[in-house]
């Protein structure tokens, strides 16, 4: 699982930086195209939900997602590499 912030929804309130026990969210430094300073993720692979969700079969922690007033935090499945047939031309 990969933690992600939806830049189209985030309003840069920084509440996520307050609640993460691992301090994964850091206040951002640069405004994006919408003029919003979106937080940065510091080694998001440490997130409890990223590591353990599949093992336990439910959301673990999830506090950042619950407190985010703009529904901007979610997790994405890691993509399995898909084998592709490639025609090799000599």
């Amino acid at each position, binding site marked *: 699982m990969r933690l992600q912030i939806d830049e189209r929804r985030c309003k840069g*309130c*920084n*509440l996520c930086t307050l609640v993460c026990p691992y301090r994964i969210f850091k206040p951002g430094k640069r405004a994006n195209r919408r003029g919003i300073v979106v937080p940065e993720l510091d080694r998001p692979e440490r997130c409890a939900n990223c590591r353990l969700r599949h093992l336990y079969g439910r959301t673990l922690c999830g506090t950042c997602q619950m407190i985010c007033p*703009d*529904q901007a935090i*979610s997790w994405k499945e890691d993509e399995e590499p898909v084998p592709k047939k490639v025609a090799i031309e000599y």
Partner: protein
Amino acid sequence: MSEEDWLRQDRLPHIFCAGCGNGTVINCTLSAVEQIGWKRQETVFVSGIGCSSRAPGYISTDSLHTTHGRALAFATGIKLANPQLNIVVFTGDGDLAAIGGNHFIHACRRNIDLTVVCLNNMIYGMTGGQGSPTTPMGGLSTTTPYGSGEPAFDLCGLATAAGANYVARWTSYHVRELTRAILTGLENPGFSFIESLVQCPTNYGRRNRFKQVADQIEYFKSHTILVEKAARMKEKGEMIPPEMILAGEFVRRNRPALGVRP
């Protein structure tokens, strides 16, 4: 299904200001309706007017965005017309306790089977920051520029006295506890009242020493005291500072209720 399915994604981002606590309470409420397993087709969200009352507009069920103060009157109508429906009301402190105060006490008295989530930001947010019946003593607003001189309404105390079956209070910092309280409210037959204090950085926070959104959240964190602990302190004759927010479950009981599914 997940909470995301309950959102009208095409309507997001919502219009709430950056850091407004309303969005957090929407998350907690949707998590609770998801956990109880209600179907979207059988659930209706109702609200009055105010920033907080815009919440149903972002939720993918049938909803009524009614006139200011009248959410409970409309919700009562829906419940009596079709008791099969699950009804959740979002309401602001002004909507519920000022213009809608009488509907509130009578809905509690009738103990009608609704779950009411009050997003109490202690101010009229939408209209520019006028004082509300829950603005704390000394609180600054556009109508109380020298600090409110009136005591604030204790909404949970009011709901308890008027007869609601379930009454609880939390804040937008306490996301887990708030979600659990809303879930208990959904499960409990009769009138369930859950008050959540929320930050309104634009119209309350910046006038009242909370320069950053985080400051008010930190305040909620450090100024809440559990009902049980407050009761123990009272027993020992200890003083509870008046600015402390009592949080937790106030009542869970089984008075006869109206509109409960047969």
